[in-house]
């Protein structure tokens, strides 16, 4: 394809009497694009292989007997292309007439109407009238291919983008063209549901209204919608999305907003179709306070006064009696202000974003982040020779990375997949290592050949001959990319695992020009950011240790008060303290531990013993039901802020719709509480908070909203 290396042959050609010089191998379509010459397309898509099938983009090339598809024909030196002659105009008109022969022309009731390439191209290049008076082809419609994707076969123009997506991108081959000629249609295998994790992308690829989202169908017309450039709130990949809201009132859909470093233009179904929650009628829209045992709606002032008073009184009992829990689903700004509130106004370092047990790894991982151990990026999958996944079912943990890995395998990268069970991606790997859980360290030692394959086999249960294949592959690789489960790193073995990875890095990057990059896998949206912001027991923002003199000085310069140096409690420890009736107050923001499938009841019991429990959330969760005061938060669709994804990329979310009811963004809520506790915070907007984050957090020092921009930036150490 199009190469970018210098020294590549350049080709000069003429399109519509204008000269353009492009690299050899460029498609006529792309060369025309450089001149700003539009050529309509349907089957062509930047992410899919050219097939030249629909004939929409045919152009005249001097000296050739027939017009050629500009989407599939490469430029040649001296080529003379014409796209704006009466002959080409007639050809385009003819192709559009053909595409409309069996098209129902039901634009007024079609979701695509108003943003439809078929409609747009017809308007620009198509016939004015319909000459076709015969009977159009009929199909039952719409056909539910799945609960999420509907197919209107009468509108389909057989561009086959969806089919090629399933073949070339998701690799699940679920959609095919059945039958042939004018009778052909798109379908799954008889009786099969289109249950690809990525099915929704076909809706966006569809250049007509044939593939439809059951979530979006009939919800809005394009001219009623406004889109906000945001980030998908559903996992740690942080796919870039456009959040479309109807009349500024309700979110109606998520569309992909390509970020070539993060999502390659794709979204998973879990992200794409879970777009309705900001509109829910069950949202909290007014503060609640417990009166006579009942949660009762109150005004904000009353609620905030109660919260400030409750926290202040609890803190007086001692910093080990209060704690705060942030959230992997809240912004960096919000998590930052939560810890600042506790570390200043309340004197407590008991901060976390999980109730889960933190083993010995917690501190090790913090240390690893501080020293910059993690340096791998999602887009390194495009260059790595060997990709090693340890302990993560990527297809579930970071769905879109599944596509990156398949793409890497497609270009010849070697995938080594270590996971206890044969998950889907394992089938795409060259080497699958199903190890016994808990034997990760020995497995890595085996891969690094620091213990023998036989010894590693004895520990891990993986056949020695499989393990023995790995060291050579790693030795041969110029670049190795490791995705390692964050859960494993936080576990008891985390410390040893990191040491083992360090040894593996030495082995895999021992040769000249060799490198091994490591990326931690955090499935939740902003786990990385929550850690970065200091919601870790024992760490200030930027992973600096509590009590570290230098850190305290730096922070004090910005906070104008010394950060707390009291001994911290983790979420788990806070819970244990609560169960013993030793927690005077807790502030839980955007976390609902009581709803956990396992252990929720014990947590509820413990939390019910907390002297003063505040919950800020978007819904009245089971956890919120136990609170003394409940504060209604904004969802991601109603506020500004930043999220940091699993590869340490800081990206911006933006408000897509007006705020529901009396909700407030958590950073506003926290500022109000701080003000009531005598703090002089003056954040007018989320950006002000971020500026402070950049001053206090070394990794974020070089970031601001402007530089983060539309595509985000990764934080750096040192």
């Amino acid at each position, binding site marked *: 394809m199009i190469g970018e290396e210098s020294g590549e042959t350049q080709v000069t050609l003429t399109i519509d009497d204008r000269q353009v010089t492009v690299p050899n191998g460029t498609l006529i379509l792309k060369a025309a694009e450089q001149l700003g010459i539009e050529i309509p397309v349907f089957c062509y898509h930047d992410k899919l292989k*050219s*097939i*030249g*099938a*629909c*004939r*929409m983009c*045919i152009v005249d090339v001097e000296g050739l*007997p*027939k*017009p050629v*598809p500009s989407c*599939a024909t490469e430029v040649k030196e001296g080529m003379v292309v014409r796209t704006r002659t009466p002959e080409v105009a*007639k*050809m385009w008109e*003819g*192709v559009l*007439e*053909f*595409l409309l*022969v*069996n098209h129902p022309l039901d634009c007024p009731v079609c979701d695509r109407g108003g943003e439809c390439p078929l409609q747009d191209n017809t308007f620009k290049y198509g016939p004015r009238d319909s*000459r*076709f*008076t*015969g*009977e159009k*082809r009929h199909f039952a419609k719409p056909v539910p291919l799945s609960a999420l994707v509907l197919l209107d076969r009468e509108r389909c*123009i*057989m561009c086959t983008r969806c089919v090629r997506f399933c073949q070339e991108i998701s690799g699940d081959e679920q959609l095919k*063209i059945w*039958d*042939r*000629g*004018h*009778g*052909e249609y798109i379908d799954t295998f008889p009786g099969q549901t289109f249950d690809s994790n990525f099915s929704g992308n076909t809706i966006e690829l569809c250049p007509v209204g044939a593939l439809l989202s059951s979530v979006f169908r009939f919800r809005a017309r394009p001219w009623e919608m406004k889109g906000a450039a945001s980030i998908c709130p559903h996992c740690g990949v942080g796919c870039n999305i456009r959040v479309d809201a109807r009349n500024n009132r309700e979110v109606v859909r998520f569309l992909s907003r390509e970020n070539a470093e993060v999502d390659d233009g794709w979204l998973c179904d879990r992200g794409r179709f879970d777009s309705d929650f900001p509109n829910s009628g069950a949202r909290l829209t007014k503060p609640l306070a417990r009166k006579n045992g009942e949660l009762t709606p109150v005004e904000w002032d009353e609620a905030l006064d109660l919260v400030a008073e409750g926290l202040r009184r609890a803190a007086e009992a001692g910093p080990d009696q209060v704690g705060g829990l942030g959230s992997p689903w809240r912004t960096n700004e919000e998590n930052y202000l939560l810890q600042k509130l506790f570390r200043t106004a309340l004197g407590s370092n008991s901060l976390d974003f999980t109730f889960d047990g933190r083993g010995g790894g917690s501190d090790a991982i913090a240390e690893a982040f501080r020293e910059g151990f993690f340096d791998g990026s999602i887009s390194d999958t495009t260059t790595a020779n060997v990709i090693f996944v340890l302990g993560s079912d990527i297809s579930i943990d970071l769905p879109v990375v599944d596509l990156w890995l398949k793409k890497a395998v497609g270009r010849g990268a070697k995938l080594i997949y270590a996971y206890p069970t044969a998950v889907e991606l394992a089938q795409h790997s060259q080497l699958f290592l199903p190890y016994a859980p808990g034997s990760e360290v020995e497995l890595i030692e085996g891969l690094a050949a620091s213990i023998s394959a036989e010894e590693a086999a004895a520990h891990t249960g993986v056949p020695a001959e499989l393990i023995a294949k790995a060291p050579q592959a790693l030795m041969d690789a110029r670049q190795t990319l490791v995705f390692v489960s964050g859960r494993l790193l936080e576990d008891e073995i985390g410390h040893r695992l990191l040491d083992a990875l360090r040894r593996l890095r030495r082995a895999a990057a021992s040769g000249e020009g060799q490198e091994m990059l490591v990326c931690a896998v955090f499935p939740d949206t902003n786990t990385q950011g929550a850690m970065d912001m200091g919601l870790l027991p024992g760490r200030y923002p930027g992973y600096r240790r509590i009590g570290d003199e230098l850190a305290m000085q730096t922070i004090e310069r910005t906070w104008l008060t010394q950060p707390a140096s009291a001994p911290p409690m983790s979420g788990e420890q806070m819970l244990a303290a609560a169960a013993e009736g030793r927690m005077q107050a807790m502030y839980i923001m955007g976390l609902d531990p009581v709803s956990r499938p396992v252990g929720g009841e014990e947590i509820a019991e413990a939390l019910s013993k907390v002297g003063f429990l505040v919950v800020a959330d978007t819904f009245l969760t089971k956890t919120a039901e136990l609170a003394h005061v409940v504060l209604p938060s904004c969802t991601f669709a109603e506020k500004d802020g930043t999220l940091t994804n699993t590869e340490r990329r800081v990206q911006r979310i933006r408000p897509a719709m007006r705020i529901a009811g009396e909700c407030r963004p958590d950073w506003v809520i926290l500022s109000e509480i701080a003000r009531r506790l005598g703090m002089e915070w003056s954040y007018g907007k989320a950006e002000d908070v971020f500026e402070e984050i950049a001053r206090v957090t070394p990794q974020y020092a070089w970031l601001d909203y402007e530089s983060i921009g539309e595509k985000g930036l990764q934080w750096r150490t040192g």
Partner: protein
Amino acid sequence: MENILFKHLDIADLEKLDVYVANGGYAALGKALKELAPAEVTGLVTRSGLRGRGGAGFSTGKKWSFIPKDVDTPKYLTCNADESEPGTFKDRELMVRNPHQLLEGIALCCYAIGAAKSFIYIRGEYAHQARVMEKAIEEAKEAGYLGRNIMGSDFSLKVVVHRGAGAYICGEETALLDSLEGKKGWPRFRPPFPAIAGLYAKPTVINNVETLCNVPHIISRGPEWFASIGTEKSTGTKVFSVSGHVNKPGNYELPMGVTARELLFEHAGGIWGGRRLKAFIPGGASVPMLTESDLDVRLDFESVMAAGSMLGSGGVIVMNEDACIVWATLNLSKFYNHESCGKCAPCREGTYFIVQILKALEDGHGLPGDVEKLRDVATNIDGRSFCALGDAAAQPVKSSIDRFHEEYEYHIAHRGCMVGRS
């Protein structure tokens, strides 16, 4: 005229290996393996002027010469026996009556291009012909004309019969390759051309049955002999399949350049039912129609082209004055609509559009302007479709309107036909 490809008309049981060998069969292969370098075989074929008999008329020797030499990669010959062009049935007879002639041609080509494997892609309906070819392959293998170390040389060849399953498009050479690879028969984008990346993305020659059947004779009797038959640029004989309204439908092997008049009246027994000739399609359904005034056109690539049509497959469909031209065009248009693979819009939708207009005309629902519309729709397909099937679909429509305009208009004005149905 001597029968060359159709020697089976003179020699009984020529399909049997011993009879074939007794009549000089496999001598050409023996000669090539013993005396000729592969490039020399290609050279002889090039010098003979042999052109592809499948329809396009490309120089066979030149096609072979495009196969990269001295590259260590498998190469293939695919014999196109997907004879599906309406009005064409020559390969059927060639395979059944003289299968070893084809196998010898295949072996010679494979030797020339360095292929160790050849597939015969035969249309699914030719089940009997497939069985005949498979039997002949077995016999030839046992006798040492195929298989390992053919005739004591170090040339080995495996020939495999692959049956199609009912898809005209698979006669298009790149659709054929996809079909042979177990996919839907959708034509491929070129470049790359099959000579560089064909079957399994390896260098591949695709030749029609009749083309390959000529090769043993060229090697045996020399390119000069071959070039002395036919015309200067269309050398050799051509097997013409004549069908429709003639008294003696059948295959006729005649020198290239024979006139249509001689073919139809001297060989095919004249027009059926004692009626006058109305139209004939000289090269299978996919080429423009000609009429009585074209009877003296010589049937070779250049002359038919000059007359505004194409020699194509040499399948000549004859219509007498009782045939309604709108009905006949509708019939062919339905064929193309049914056989369109569905890959590109002009062919998939355009053939459907054409059928709808023609149906209306045929049923007496035509409206003023329909004929112009019909012609314009055909024009919008012609040259814009992905492969030649779309072009083919446009030819009967355009040529019949050009030559029988008043008959179309009559259908509109009188809501019916001006001629009795056949």
